[in-house]
C-alpha cells in the first residue's frame, strides 16, 4: 500500500473525483462491526479515525526510536529529537508559517487556547475587552472567562442569526479601541457554520486587536495557510486530522510569541536555573515544559504526510455532497428539524427529532451500527440560542460514503418507528 495521491482525477470531464473505496482501505477500524452491524462512523468532529501509516508510526516509534527529546547526548535521544523537531518543520510547511519558532506543540486545541489566554492574556488589564462569538465551544469560552476574572477584562459575545451565521454588523459594533483579543471558531463544531474569518481578522486588526482562530474543525478538511489568513494565533488538534490523540498545534506570530511570558514552568523550557533567578529558553521550547507526547508527534508526522497527498478539491466536493445529501434526506423525514442552516457549511449535520431526546436518537442509531454524537457538543450557550437542549450530530470525513448516509437515514426511520409505536 502506498500513500500516493488520493482521489484520482477523472480526465474526461476535467473534474476530480474522490476514490472513497481506496481511501477506506487505509483505515483498518472501518471494517469493525458495532452491535453486529457494519460500523458507520459519523462522529468525525469529535475525533477522526486513523489511517494505517499513523498507527504504524506510533508502533515504530516505540519499537525503534523511543527516548526523551532534547536531553540525552546518546544516539537514541538524538534520533527521537530529530523526529520531533523534523515534524515541527513539517507542521511549519503544512501551515505555511514563517518559522518553526512559530509552531508550538500542545495536547490539543483546548491547551492551545489556554496557552494564548494565559500567556498573551497576561498583558490584559481591567477594562480591556475580548470578543468571542455565540457559537463557540466551551474551550473557547471558559479560558477567556477565567482570564476576565483574573484581570478585570470584559468578555463580549458577537451574536449569530437563526441559521447559525455570525451577525457581522453586530460583531463590528463590538469592536472598539478597548478590544484586545478576538477569539473565534473557524468552523462551528455543533452546526458546521463556516465563519467569515478573513473579514473578522481584517476588522479586528483595524481596531488594533489580535485574532486567535479555533481551527479544530477546519484544519482536518482544508489546507490552512496562516500567512494568507493573516491571523495572529491558530490552534487545532492533531487527533481530528487523522493523527493520534495527544498532539495539537498552536501557531503564533513570532513577533507576539517573542514578547509572551512562559505559561507552564518546568524542564525543557529554561535557559538556566538557580534558586535566585531563572532565565527562559527561546522559541518554541519556552512554551513546551516537560516531556511532550513524542509518540503522538511521530503519529502527527505520518498524518501530515498522509494529508499532504490528498486532493483537497476532490475531498471537499465529496464531503460536501455527503453533507448535502444527508441534510436533504433528513429534512424530508417528518418531525426531523435541522439545527444550523448556514449558507456556507462544513460537513456537519445537527438535527433534532420531535418528541425524542437526542440521546435516545443516538442510542437507536447505535443499535444500527451508526455512531453519531448526541448532546450539547460542549456548546451550551449555542444550544440555548438555537432553542434546543441537545442535538444529534452526524459529521463526515474523507472515508464516509453515500451508503453510510443511507444507513443514517434508515436508522432515523427506526428511531421514528420505535418512538411512535
Amino acid at each position, binding site marked *: 500500500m502506498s500513500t500516493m495521491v488520493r482521489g484520482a482525477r477523472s480526465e474526461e470531464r476535467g473534474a476530480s473525483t474522490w476514490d472513497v473505496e481506496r481511501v477506506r482501505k487505509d483505515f483498518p477500524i472501518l471494517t469493525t462491526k458495532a452491535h453486529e452491524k457494519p460500523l458507520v462512523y459519523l462522529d468525525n468532529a469529535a475525533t477522526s479515525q486513523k489511517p494505517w501509516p499513523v498507527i504504524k508510526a506510533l508502533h515504530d516509534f516505540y519499537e525503534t526510536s523511543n527516548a526523551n527529546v532534547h536531553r540525552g547526548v546518546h544516539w537514541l535521544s538524538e534520533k527521537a529529537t530529530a523526529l520531533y523537531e523534523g515534524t515541527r518543520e513539517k507542521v511549519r510547511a503544512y501551515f505555511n508559517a514563517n518559522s518553526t519558532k512559530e509552531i508550538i506543540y500542545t495536547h490539543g486545541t483546548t491547551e492551545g487556547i489556554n496557552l494564548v489566554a494565559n500567556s498573551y492574556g497576561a498583558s490584559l488589564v481591567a477594562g480591556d475587552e475580548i470578543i468571542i462569538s455565540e457559537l463557540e465551544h466551551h474551550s473557547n469560552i471558559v479560558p477567556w472567562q477565567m482570564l476576565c476574572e483574573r484581570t478585570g477584562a470584559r468578555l463580549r459575545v458577537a451574536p449569530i442569526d437563526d441559521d447559525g451565521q455570525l451577525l457581522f454588523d453586530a460583531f463590528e459594533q463590538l469592536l472598539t479601541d478597548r478590544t484586545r483579543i478576538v477569539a473565534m471558531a473557524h468552523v462551528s463544531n455543533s452546526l458546521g457554520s463556516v465563519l467569515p474569518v478573513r473579514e473578522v481578522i481584517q476588522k479586528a486588526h483595524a481596531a488594533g486587536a489580535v485574532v486567535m482562530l479555533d481551527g479544530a474543525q477546519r484544519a482536518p478538511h482544508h489546507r490552512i495557510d496562516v500567512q494568507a489568513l493573516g491571523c495572529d494565533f491558530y490552534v487545532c488538534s492533531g487527533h481530528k486530522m487523522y493523527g493520534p490523540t495527544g498532539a495539537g498545534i498552536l501557531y503564533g506570530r513570532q513577533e507576539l510569541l517573542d514578547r509572551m511570558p512562559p505559561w507552564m514552568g518546568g524542564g525543557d523550557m529554561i535557559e538556566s536555573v538557580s534558586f535566585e533567578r531563572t532565565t527562559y529558553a527561546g522559541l518554541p521550547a519556552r512554551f513546551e515544559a516537560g516531556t511532550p507526547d513524542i509518540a503522538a508527534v511521530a503519529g502527527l508526522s505520518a498524518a501530515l504526510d498522509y494529508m499532504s497527498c490528498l486532493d483537497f478539491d476532490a475531498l471537499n466536493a465529496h464531503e460536501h455532497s455527503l453533507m448535502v445529501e444527508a441534510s436533504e434526506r433528513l429534512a424530508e423525514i417528518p418531525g426531523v428539524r435541522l439545527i444550523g442552516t448556514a449558507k456556507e457549511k462544513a460537513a456537519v449535520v445537527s438535527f433534532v427529532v420531535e418528541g*425524542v*431526546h*437526542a*440521546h*435516545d436518537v443516538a*442510542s437507536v442509531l447505535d443499535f444500527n451500527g451508526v455512531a453519531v454524537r*448526541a*448532546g*450539547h457538543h460542549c456548546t*451550551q450557550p449555542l*444550544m440555548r440560542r438555537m432553542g434546543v*437542549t*441537545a442535538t444529534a450530530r452526524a459529521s463526515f470525513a474523507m472515508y464516509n460514503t453515500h451508503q453510510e448516509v443511507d444507513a443514517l437515514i434508515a436508522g432515523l426511520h427506526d428511531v421514528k418507528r*420505535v*418512538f411512535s*409505536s
Partner: protein
Amino acid sequence: MILDHNRNPRNFREIPDATRQVFGRNPLCGDEVTVYVKMKGDVIDDVSFGGRGCAISKASASLMTNAVKGKTRQEAHELFDRFHALVTSSPTAADRPDAKALGRLAVLGGVARFPARVKCATLAWHALENAIQGGATEVSTDDQL
C-alpha cells in the same frame, strides 16, 4: 414499558406542599429533574417529578415514583441500593440483584450494558435519596455514579 413511561410519565407534576424538593442535573447531557416528596412521618406519602430528559431518565423517574410511594425512608433507600446495583453491575455478575425482586424497575436493568446511559437511569434516584435523607437540594451525576 420504558417507551410507555417516557410518553406517559406517571406522577409528572409538582407537589405544591412538598416536604422537600431536590433538583438533579446530568451535566453530560443536560438532563434536569426535580423530585418532590411529601413525607408523613417516616413514610413517603406522595412523590412526583418534573423536568426534561431522555426516555431512560424520564421512564426511570416515572417508575421510581410508583415504586417508592407508601414506602418508608429505609425501604426506599434499600430499593435504591438494589436498583443501583442492578444497573451498574455486569449482566453476568454473581452478586447481581435478583431482577424479580425489583418488579417493574427491572426493565431498566438493560442499561447496565450501556455505561453511558447508566447516569440517565439513576439521576432521579439520586435526587430522591437526597430528598428523603435530608441531603443537598441540588445533585449532579458528576458527583456520583
